[in-house]
């Protein structure tokens, strides 16, 4: 094992080179993955707000105003 790590006195060069490559490639993968997840969450949140256009009003109570809102968005109240 020490021979393997030593690599004929080139160990420090070889392991630094492999270490930098691993760090950069793993770092880019993780950053890309987290970016994608964050956007998936952001899109899901956004779509949720689209499905509930009037979240502050009590459910089931349709005022004339809210009826107009629903008409405007969905074409027909549902």
């Amino acid at each position, binding site marked *: 094992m020490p021979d*393997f790590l030593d*690599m*004929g*006195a*080139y*160990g420090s*060069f*070889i392991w*630094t*080179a*492999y270490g*930098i*490559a691993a760090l*950069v*490639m793993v770092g*880019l*993968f993780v950053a*890309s*993955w987290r*970016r*994608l997840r964050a*956007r*998936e969450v*952001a*899109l899901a949140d*956004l*779509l949720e*707000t*689209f499905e509930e256009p009037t979240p502050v009003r009590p459910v089931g109570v349709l005022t004339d105003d809210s009826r107009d*809102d629903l008409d*405007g*968005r969905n074409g027909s109240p549902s």
Partner: protein
Amino acid sequence: MYRFANPKRFLRIAAVVLPWSAALTVAFLGLGLYLALLASPADYQQGESVRIMYVHVPAAWMALFVYSCLAAASAVALIWKHPVADLAAKASAPIGACFTFIALATGSIWGKPMWGVWWVWDARLTSVLILFFFYMGHMALTSAFEDASRGERAAAILALVGFINIPVIKWSVDWWNTLHQPASMIRMDGPAIHASMLAPLLIMAAAFTAYYVTVLILRLRGEILARKIGALRMTRIQDRQEERGPHMKEV
């Protein structure tokens, strides 16, 4: 080509490809690292330090390959205005920059024990450093404008201009005097490298290619989602303006 221009179709294909490319990355990396670090022999001149080659050379190949893909995507985006092509170029740039950085860093670390210096301003090293700057420039330009399409157009033009650098890098070791060794793979008389060293080199190159496909799909999906989020937010703003009445639009 047009079939891939549709984001929905692309996402469907990407969902099928992603698990395969991820699995191939892991498998090739495992096998490649075993061959590179354990099973392959030391070089008769360079000793064990030759093992740096199995990261350095595939990374340098990928730096050129990813830039070629980026330039091709940019040409398609400029000529046919394919929406996915623009995003593919944008998604490729950071991956290519990372490969170029790895090639430069590992080359420098390999150069110290072999050449006695970390860096020389010769044609090969300088042209690869310029390639790195082209990648950085591309990334900066795509995000420099408020209107994303303007940034993407400017970056596409930069990518095509920078493509001149690719043959310069490839043949720099033949055209100018350099410390860097000449090509060992693509030669008129066949590869000048023993099979025991060729195998880990090619397997590591396959691993890096599979890695590129995997990360490209992740980033492209992210870009498509970002565009979708932007479009939805715009719709929301327009809806709100309509809800407030026509007089608000003029404000």
